[in-house]
């Protein structure tokens, strides 16, 4: 299976703290995407990082990719209550066949 496996499965932090979620995958990829899912909603795209990129930023989000270790991380800085959601990584082998894991459930406590 080429699914992205997120770690930890659940993370609870205080508002204002940084949250780091990790993702590992098993085969070579063309790119890797991160998505957010709020409870009862569809997924929302956060960032796409290509295999030749090592780091990418978008607002309070920072994604890194280490293809030698087949891993990626998502950092959310200065967390807010609205960041409470599940976060999924999705490795893309190149045929737009994203393979999602179980996600990391992030809870931001006020």
């Amino acid at each position, binding site marked *: 299976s080429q699914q992205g496996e997120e770690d930890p499965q659940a993370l609870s932090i205080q508002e204002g703290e940084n949250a780091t979620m990790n993702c590992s995958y098993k085969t070579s990829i063309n790119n890797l995407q991160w998505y957010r899912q709020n409870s009862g909603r*569809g997924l929302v795209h956060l960032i*796409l990082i290509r295999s030749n990129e090592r780091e990418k930023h978008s607002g309070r989000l920072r994604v890194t990719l280490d293809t030698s270790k087949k891993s990626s991380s998502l950092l959310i800085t200065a967390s807010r209550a609205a960041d409470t959601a599940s976060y999924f990584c999705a490795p893309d082998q190149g*045929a737009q066949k994203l393979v*999602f894991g179980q996600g990391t459930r992030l809870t931001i406590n006020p």
Partner: protein
Amino acid sequence: DTAVSQTPKYLVTQMGNDKSIKCEQNLGHDTMYWYKQDSKKFLKIMFSYNNKELIINETVPNRFSPKSPDKAHLNLHINSLELGDSAVYFCASSQGWGPRGNEQFFGPGTRLTVL
């Protein structure tokens, strides 16, 4: 003006029935997908279509049949529903499906409950 819409939002039905879920996108995208999210939150791709042609067909029972009447619509028909089909089904779309990758836009989901 919802980008990707699905109907119905909730579907409760008896085992053995046949049901359809409809999906429409108004983003002008070429590629559409169906995903299944189980109770443990695993999200698995089922099908994808590019310009009305099937390009991904994962190992799903042939009771599931997608139909794409045009680029903006991808419907999912399920025959002889079983208890294990209970899940949330998401439709998604993207602009193309090339190796560089494309952001996928998801619909709100259809929660299917088979009794």
